[in-house]
């Protein structure tokens, strides 16, 4: 039922990057060219290399 309610909602696509060194995750909006398991930018905390581990769509007004 919740799916039906969300059916026509606008979604925003996020890219989740995880640092290969410290494991910190960073959530940002998707950019064309991103793909899962692509090497991401540098970690915001330790400047280590990151890896894109997930790309997913969430409803815009999601509280999650």
């Amino acid at each position: 039922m919740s799916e039906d309610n969300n059916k026509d909602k606008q979604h925003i696509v996020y890219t989740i990057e995880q640092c290969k060194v410290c494991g910190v995750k960073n959530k940002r909006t998707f950019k064309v060219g991103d793909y899962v398991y692509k090497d991401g930018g540098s970690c915001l905390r330790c400047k280590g290399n990151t890896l894109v581990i997930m790309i997913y769509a969430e409803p815009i007004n999601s509280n999650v």
Partner: protein
Amino acid sequence: MVINLSDTIASIQMQANPLFPTGGESQPWWVYLLWIIPIFIFMLYGQRIQMWIVMQDVSRSLNKLKSMQDNSREEAISYIKSVNPNLTNLERIDMLMEHFTITPVNLDPYGIVSKIQHLIRLRDDRIRAEVRALAPQADEVTLSRLENVLEVATALHMLYKVVRHFYLMGKKTTSMFFLVQLQMIMPLIMQSAEALNKAIPALKNGQPIGDGIGPMVVGRLMLDREKIVIARDTVLSEYDYNGRRLYLVKAKGPGGTVGEPHTAIEKIVNEMGIRIDMIIMIDAALKLEGEKSGEVAEGIGAAIGGIGVERFQIEEIATKRNIPLYAVIIKQSILEAITTMKKEIAEAADKASRTVFRMIDEYSKQGDNILIIGVGNTLGVGQ
């Protein structure tokens, strides 16, 4: 002037009284006609009225389908033009959308699977060559996305044409038979059409779709490991785990392709001569209404969709070599399967992965060779 409400109601009741005889008193003749005429009208023209209502209903859906078909064609053209700005021959795109495949005759079904496989491979080659001709300078990943977008446009075009055919047949023959059947299946057709229409942005932007969850689970295990191309658009990696050797197979990402896992299995078993003790297939599966998206379930059999050729070949090899065939599925709706992956589905990758390793630990022994296949479209998922 003061109007007495109770008097007014009483006067309306008196005027309307002949229409609702209470019995006893004699009624004027026209009251009887007022009841009898509609009955005759509905007896004689009831079916036509019903047909008119059905036609209006189907016509509304048909118009919606037409706008979706036009939109998908425009999207495909704009995407191709963004890759190849010199493209002027739009006729070629329309020709591609009209491309058809004649399925082999099934009067004698013996050997039909290899015939279907031959035709499917031929069709794939032809479409790929056509797409390459439309955008000669595009790289492999962009070409696969273009192919996906054109496939969606072609599917919507086909849906529109078939629905229009039956609608016009019903109209021409004034046959309720055509129209009512069409009206009954229209909600399912519209559901598929809307899912296809909503898939276009994900395909154009190269975002992973729900169907890519199988390749996502296997792709993670392939990270930092050597990968060889084992079949068309399909990669193989090896992985040692707890005394077992895992052979990992998935479509080569991040382009939008499903690869050829059945050919990969055949090569691994027959050409490379590797003894496989267990096969685990991970795939997205359509959930039933009421089930939760992202639920993970395990079972037995070849978890792979499509026309059936791939499943047939995998079952054939597994049966001949007596290889146990297990499946892990991640549930989702048709809309979720072909649009950008939802959070709950992406998060199910961990659970699916844990399920696979539990199955390996429980169902196999040390020294076994286990084949793990991530089935689905690997768009936006690397390895």
